């Protein structure tokens, strides 16, 4: 009976052409959104696709499947996934300690989280290289144990982790803040241990936010350029990331090849982001609607 009525209600009000909306300016804002999106995002991307598709089919594939290019995809997406995963884990812990505990210097740390947002990425790259190179503080110490960070794929992961951290922390922080303490108290009186509370109550509640943070950190890492070129050493086949390869192509005036590589990145990124969004949407549906 109740769902029936709910379905009927919008139908009766539908014929009224201009229903006064609670928020005025719907047409204006949507028009602006469409224009803005087109001018800033879709047009340049369209130009990129056109440029890439202007190439001959064989030449296009040759550029895309060039071993050096494939190696760069692997490094870019592999390192980005690694960095986003590391961020998902440690970013959660950082957000947790910032939300849950009151300690001296908490506000300072909270402010420091945003630093990678503001710092020119090249600066963080130089800083990381200085510290992690074999003559740097940490790099020298790690070299004792035979671990090389700078100029290896590991260095790339480190740089991308640094860049993605604030995205993770800033998305998880508010979600964690919203987990009601009463839920944890309830679980505790029902006999759950701290770990069970974390696994069964807190994590399911903040999972959508963690996924969003993961997506953001991942997307940011794929596009990252400035911080990586210093620490990676840019060895072709080994520590060269795709954005750098594109710059190399541009410097050699191979605009079409650069566009083709850009197109490839676009497609892969889109597919991956779409997949993550699908997971997220599934999680949300499960959260809101009835199961089974």
């Amino acid at each position, binding site marked *: 009976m109740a769902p029936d009525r709910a379905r009927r209600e919008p139908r009766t009000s539908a014929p009224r052409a201009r229903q006064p909306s609670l928020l005025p300016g719907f047409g204006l804002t949507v028009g602006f959104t469409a224009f803005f999106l087109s001018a800033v995002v879709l047009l340049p991307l369209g130009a990129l696709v056109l440029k890439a598709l202007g190439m001959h089919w064989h030449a296009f594939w040759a550029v895309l499947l060039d071993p050096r290019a494939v190696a760069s995809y692997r490094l870019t997406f592999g390192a980005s996934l690694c960095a986003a995963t590391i961020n998902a884990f440690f970013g959660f812990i950082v957000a947790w300690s910032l939300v849950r505990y009151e300690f001296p210097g908490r506000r300072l740390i909270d402010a420091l989280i945003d630093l990678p947002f503001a710092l020119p990425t090249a600066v963080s790259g130089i800083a990381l290289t200085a510290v992690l190179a074999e003559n740097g503080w940490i790099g020298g110490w790690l070299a004792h144990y035979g671990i090389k960070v700078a100029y290896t794929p590991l260095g790339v992961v480190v740089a991308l982790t640094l860049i993605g951290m604030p995205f993770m922390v800033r998305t998880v922080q508010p979600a964690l803040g919203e987990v009601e303490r009463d839920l944890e108290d309830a679980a505790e009186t*029902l006999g759950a*241990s701290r770990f069970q509370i974390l696994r069964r109550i807190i994590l399911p509640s903040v999972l959508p936010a963690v996924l969003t943070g993961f997506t953001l950190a991942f997307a940011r890492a794929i596009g990252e350029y400035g911080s990586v070129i210093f620490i990676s050493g840019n060895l072709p086949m080994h520590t060269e990331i795709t954005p750098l390869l594109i710059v190399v192509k541009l410097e050699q005036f191979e605009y079409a090849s650069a566009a083709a590589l850009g197109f490839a990145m676009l497609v892969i990124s889109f597919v991956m982001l779409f997949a993550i969004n699908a997971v997220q949407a599934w999680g949300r549906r499960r959260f809101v609607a009835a199961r089974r």
Partner: protein
Amino acid sequence: MSIILDQLTKRYQGLPVVNDVSLSVAEGEFFVLLGPSGSGKSTLLRAIAGLTGIDHGRISLHGRDVTHVPARRREVGFVFQNYALFGHMTVADNIEFALRVRRVRGAARRERRQELLRMVALEGMDDRLPSQLSGGQQQRVAVARALAHRPKVLLLDEPFGALDARIREELRTTIRKVQQELGITTILVTHDQEEAFALADRIGVMNQGRLLDSGRPDELYARPASRFVATFLGAANLLLARRTADGIDFGHVLVERRRTPRDPEVVTVVRPQDIELAPSRERLTSRFVGQGTVESVVYTGAFERLRVRPLEGSSLARISTGGNGGAGSLLEVVRTENEQSSFPLALDQAVVVGVRRAHVLPTPLTSFTLYVADAGAADALRAHPLLEDLVNRMKTRLTAMTDAEADAAAAAGGVVARGVAVIAAGADAPARIARLLDRGATEVLVLPAFRQVPQRVLIHWTDEAARRATLAVAASVLRHVPAEALCINILPAGTPEKQRDQSMFSLLDARSEGQAVHRLDVRTELRFGETATELARELAAPGSQMLILGVSDPGEVERRFGGLLGAALAHPAIVACPPSKIVPRTGHGA
């Protein structure tokens, strides 16, 4: 005993939110903790569940000391005001949660779930998510979830707070039914006295962190022990009167008889339905108390609620002031249909007022009278935060008398001391205290210029004759001031062992007396040295304090405590002196 709390204290930023609460709840009993918001009742409940740590005291559940046991191993069921259901789980998963974390097998879980859903009348709702249920249904799920692991104690924190009146009543019935069916010991926290009456086997009334009183609902209603309980449990008029040899004197009844200053002032509780209104004194069937005019009439079907303003000059002006937005000086009256038809009333109509039944409160602090040099000094004293708090919270009267007036009254043999005498601290304070005690005051409050509400109350009496009176005063103060209490007994240095034991016993006696008579929990300590010196040392401790000093001879005040209570007094002090020991010197006594 199923739940035993022993001297539970929980401080928040140095202030006690739960203050020395001791309580025992019997097996299968439904106990309701009733109090206004901020009274510490929820904190107390959370402490029992182990969700809040405590600073002092012990908690035992079914003979097992759980003071240091974490919440998850206390085997209690807890129901929250906002349901606290797990939003990402179905009703079934919510209810089975406690069993799942205990690794109970699937079939057994399902069986228990069905049983619980039947109990709270939610069969077939297994697969819903909490967001698809109404508030009342959600709270039923929360109750079922809290009972899943067969806890021995059920704790409910304002479970009906977020529900509308009809659902509230329905759920109330369900919870009472479930509780009786399972025979589970239950504590429910609420601020709604109607709810408390409807559910409770026993009610405990909390205010400012203290458990003021507990007992069967009808007992608490008929014979409240304090002003707060009287006014919080149902409507009540607090009237000041005098206790005479012939009974309670509201001022007019025994007007021909010469009253003496020794007739102590008392606070009486008169329920609105115990007040009779009549057109003239002759038509009154109960005791005549005074005259007034009808200020407002509200007809509520079976009853009629009236407010009557006492006539100026009538003894009814002695109704306690303060309280509900100035309405406190109006008499609340409830009349039945019979009374309405036999004497219809309109606004502004003059009536005579009679009292059918009055309950006398045992509190010694009835009203306050300032004794000052002039009116300016009275205003300064009136604004002292401690006095303001006491007067407002006691909903009582505060009057002033200049020294000249007091002297004239004393010379004429009239009433000098009414209620608590209040004076300003200073070098002449000890002498003034002694004079006031001589003139019939039983308590003198000395207020220093230092304006702070005390966090700790020191209690000391010089000899056993003053103990009862001192404890009564302390209990009355502590019901209205959120402070911690410490009883100290001071022996001369080098007291022989045997006498020390005796002193310790007397302190323990005092503790039991405080608990039994006043429901007041105090901590006790034994000190050695010179009494006034030791008291001064205690008062010098950091934090704001207050001294309650019991003496049995007014002469002692100047002789022994002249230094302590003189110009150097930095904290408020009450000197209490039981009336029986006063030897009238002015010659106009009883």
